[in-house]
């Protein structure tokens, strides 16, 4: 038998112990002042996680405020579990993206799997049935010995979890860069659909109402995950392995069904998932938002292991658990639902009016502190920033083609950042739900809103090398690219979620990157009417002083009210005319061409003319609405030639180009923004051209769809079969250990 844990068996809290919990000396002093005495170990644990970067956003809060978060269609912006937008007919889309970077680096399968589980809970907590998952992944350079293992584990983990819960994984992006050698990024996004009159929030109300725990039992998983994910990696981080949580997607699936079943009643006052910092953050946030206190009886918490201490129970990050406040008298009805789904259900406390957090167990009181300071006295830093010096513009003439355009294109399509991601997305169930219209491998994914004519478009985007060279331009570009991708399928871009992945914010240059990206994003959000409704910040992505590229991953969501309007990004029919919309100046700075062909990762990234973006976006959407286009693809990494190749590969049709025989690298591979490649039936070309001219968007006719090669580039025709081999071959070959 284990000995019952008593307060006198706990270590005394000291400044050193506080430091081990990640509290800086001034933060500990502030805590002492709030508590008014030496805290208990449990109290220290609670303070340390609530005041961690992960929970308090202490370095980023001042900057995040600068992002536009409202629009007539925004129902709920940042601050809740996820953002909520109105999609008409009494329905809402609820979505968010969240990082699980550090856990995924340490244990890729479980780290990625629990990342998916966590973001799913954020969305169904609010009353939405999850309808799609996406992700944004960044790994170190392929030659790094850890990369292959991380890719394999992360992809298997995302699939293992998402496939089992029955939510299709419909899109995402993956980059490789040496800056991520020591810190991979795993950002997971979930989109759900709810009724606007059945949205659930985390704000508790009603003194005396029961606090209910549902889901899996609590074990010693992930203790101090929240503080770990807010600390820079050092050599000994690998020893922290036991703190990584293990996911159980089967239980999550049951939890989704049980929660949605209970949500169909009116028994729930408030609900919150137990994510980072588990029971601590969920109870503090719910009671705190309601301006109430909370009494918890930890003896009632379902426990998986014997002899757990209050400290361990409060800080456990066991997965697949939720906390809710029920209407009194509804406990039996709720319990029946959870019994049906074979999940634990326990009343573990009640709301109080004294504004305190009181925790009891084994007849002792382990925590009795005022609740408010846990969130409103959390440290707030306005850290010094240092701007990134502007990079020189690089003229296309400085970077001439080294081989024929044909051969250059063939080589580029087989490079790590442009090669097909099929090896990844074929491991994800992208079709469960039978509402996926466009899955992975398109520009934006398109998923029908079940049983309606509507569809939701979604995408994740960011070009970290642009952000590193010029954070403001890079931030704007990430938002603009998400906007463009949503436009290509015909949808109206509505809102974004952001996942801000950066290095150590205590370094002014890093904080300057953060501030710059926010500035660029904010401007793009304003001009494009594309507000931020949810987000997540992951800082300290550094290993031994080496930071990642600034990576503000953007998850965009748009609405297509008539899903029959949707078009894809592959060439559709022989004889269709290919047109380029938008202005091409031939910007080679920071292009993949410059990096891969000339070995130069240099220069200023392409400028983003937001007004032009808006004009081009409105034009393209209007043309799709008028059914004048047969396919549409946005131009991004690799520029025009790569865009043409992608359309040909996706549509399994070639193209005969005109006027590009002698084109230079800037025209073919420059990464100018605000551009779309579209196709139209021959009879509609005049209408498209006229509309473009009327909208003030430059338009160029490039050629005609047909054949089985890309013909008309310098160096001769490039057979699709050869192109496909290069494009599809790299990743499987690399993962098999051949590259």
């Amino acid at each position, binding site marked *: 038998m284990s000995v019952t844990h008593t307060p006198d068996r706990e270590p005394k809290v000291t400044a050193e112990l506080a430091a081990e919990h990640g509290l800086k000396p001034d933060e500990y002093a502030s805590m002492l002042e709030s508590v008014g005495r030496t805290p208990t170990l449990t109290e220290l644990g609670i303070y340390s996680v609530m005041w961690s970067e992960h929970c308090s956003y202490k370095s980023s809060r001042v900057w995040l405020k600068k992002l536009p978060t409202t629009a007539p269609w925004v129902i709920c912006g940042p601050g809740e579990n996820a953002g909520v937008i109105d999609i008409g007919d009494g329905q809402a889309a609820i979505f968010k993206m969240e990082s699980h970077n550090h856990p995924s680096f340490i244990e890729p399968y479980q780290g990625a799997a629990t990342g998916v589980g966590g973001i799913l809970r954020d969305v169904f907590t609010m009353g939405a049935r999850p309808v799609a998952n996406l992700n944004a992944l960044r790994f170190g350079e392929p030659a790094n010995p850890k990369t292959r293992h991380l890719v394999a584990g992360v992809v298997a983990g995302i699939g293992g979890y998402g*496939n*089992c819960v029955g939510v299709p994984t419909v899109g995402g992006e993956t980059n490789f860069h040496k800056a991520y050698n020591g810190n991979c990024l795993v950002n997971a996004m979930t989109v759900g659909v709810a009724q606007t009159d059945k949205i659930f929030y985390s704000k508790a109300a009603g003194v005396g109402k029961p606090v209910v725990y549902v889901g899996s039992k609590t074990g010693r998983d992930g203790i101090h995950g929240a503080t770990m994910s807010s600390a820079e990696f050092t050599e000994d981080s690998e020893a922290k392995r036991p703190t990584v949580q293990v996911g*159980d997607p*089967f239980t999550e*699936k049951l939890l989704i069904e049980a929660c949605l079943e209970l949500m169909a009643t009116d028994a729930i006052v408030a609900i919150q998932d137990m994510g980072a910092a588990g029971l601590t953050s969920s109870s503090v946030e719910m009671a705190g938002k309601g301006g109430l206190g909370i009494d918890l009886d930890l003896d009632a918490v379902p426990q998986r292991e014997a002899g757990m201490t209050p400290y361990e129970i409060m800080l456990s990050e066991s997965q697949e658990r939720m906390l809710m406040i029920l209407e009194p008298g509804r406990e039996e009805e709720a319990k029946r639902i959870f019994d049906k789904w074979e999940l634990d259900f326990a009343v573990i406390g009640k709301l109080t009016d004294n504004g305190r957090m009181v925790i009891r167990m084994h007849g002792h009181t382990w925590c009795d502190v005022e609740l408010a300071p846990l969130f409103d006295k959390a440290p707030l830093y306005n850290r010094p920033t240092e701007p990134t010096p502007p990079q020189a513009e690089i003229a296309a003439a400085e970077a001439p083609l080294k081989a024929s355009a044909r051969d250059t294109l063939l080589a580029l399509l087989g490079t790590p950042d442009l090669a097909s991601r099929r090896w990844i997305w074929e491991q994800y169930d992208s079709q469960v739900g039978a509402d996926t219209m466009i899955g992975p491998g398109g520009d934006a994914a398109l998923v029908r809103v*079940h049983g309606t004519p509507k569809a939701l478009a979604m995408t994740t985007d960011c070009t970290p090398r642009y952000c590193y060279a010029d954070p403001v331009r890079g931030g704007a570009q990430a938002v603009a690219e998400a906007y463009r991708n949503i436009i290509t399928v015909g949808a109206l871009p509505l809102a974004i979620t952001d996942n801000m992945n950066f290095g150590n914010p205590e370094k002014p240059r890093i904080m300057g990157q953060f501030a710059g990206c926010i500035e660029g994003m904010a401007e793009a959000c304003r001009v494009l009417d594309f507000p931020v409704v949810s987000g997540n910040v992951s800082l300290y992505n550094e290993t031994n002083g080496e930071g990642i590229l600034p990576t503000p991953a953007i998850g965009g969501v748009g609405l297509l009210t008539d899903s029959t309007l949707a078009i894809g990004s592959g060439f559709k029919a022989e004889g269709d005319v290919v047109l380029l919309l938008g202005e091409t100046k031939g910007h080679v700075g920071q292009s993949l061409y410059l990096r891969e062909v000339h070995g130069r990762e240099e220069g200023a990234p392409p400028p983003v003319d937001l007004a032009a973006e808006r004009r081009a976006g409105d034009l393209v959407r209007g043309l799709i609405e008028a059914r004048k286009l047969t396919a549409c693809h946005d131009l991004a990494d690799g520029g025009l030639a790569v865009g043409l190749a992608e359309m040909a590969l996706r549509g399994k049709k070639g193209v005969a180009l005109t006027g590009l025989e002698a084109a230079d690298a800037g025209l073919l591979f420059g990464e100018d923004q605000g551009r779309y490649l579209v196709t139209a039936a021959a009879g509609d070309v005049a209408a498209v051209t006229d509309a473009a001219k009327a909208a003030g968007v430059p338009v160029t006719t490039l050629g005609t769809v047909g054949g089985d090669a890309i013909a008309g580039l310098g160096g001769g025709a490039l057979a699709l079969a050869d192109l496909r081999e290069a494009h599809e071959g790299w990743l499987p070959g690399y993962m098999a250990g051949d590259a």
Partner: protein
Amino acid sequence: MKSAVIVFPGSNCERDIAVALEQVSGHKTFHAWHRDTDLPEVDVIAVPGGFSYGDYLRCGAMAANSPVMRVVKERAAKGVKVIGVCNGFQILTEAGLLPGALIRNQSLKYICKTVDLKVENTDSAFTRHYTPGQHIGIPVGHGEGNYVADEETLKRLEGDGRVAFRYTDANGVVNAAGNPNGATNNIAGIFNETRTVLGMMPHPERAFDPQHGNTDGRALFTSLLESLS
């Protein structure tokens, strides 16, 4: 045509197949829970895809032992049509309604993509709207779809025309290149002796609607409708 779909904890394609059944038949599909000990009178029972019991122990093993499966076996014995898709196929083999077993894909990876299939036998309530040897494309999504059976069982399946679908390459040729999971003889779907029970790894309900970009699965449901009404 009246239908029921069986829901186990962890099933996740029950709605998808119900939508297909409802759209062709015009009748609401009954959703049965794994603990149910009775079912309404129906003409077809669908055992859907998903991860019943999390695929723990063995795919389909625990679902095969649930109370509702006793009823499914009784109905199958009376000739009620039973279709198991993906995890449903695994459950039907575990329950002994179909021979053989489905083990881990040879690649060891989950695979989701549209595969090429050859319709091997159109003389069944499930396949009559296909033409013999028809080359179709239907999506799969599974980690354990590698069909195995002992020599004698295979001989009987092949000899009695009980192979419903076989994986092929893009040109419709049955070969190793077209085999997504290592299944013996490229078997993608099989019938029971009376061809009233069908198990298949591909998901016909995911190739049903024009908005799926492919409607090659639709004929399976219209076949059922014609057979059963």
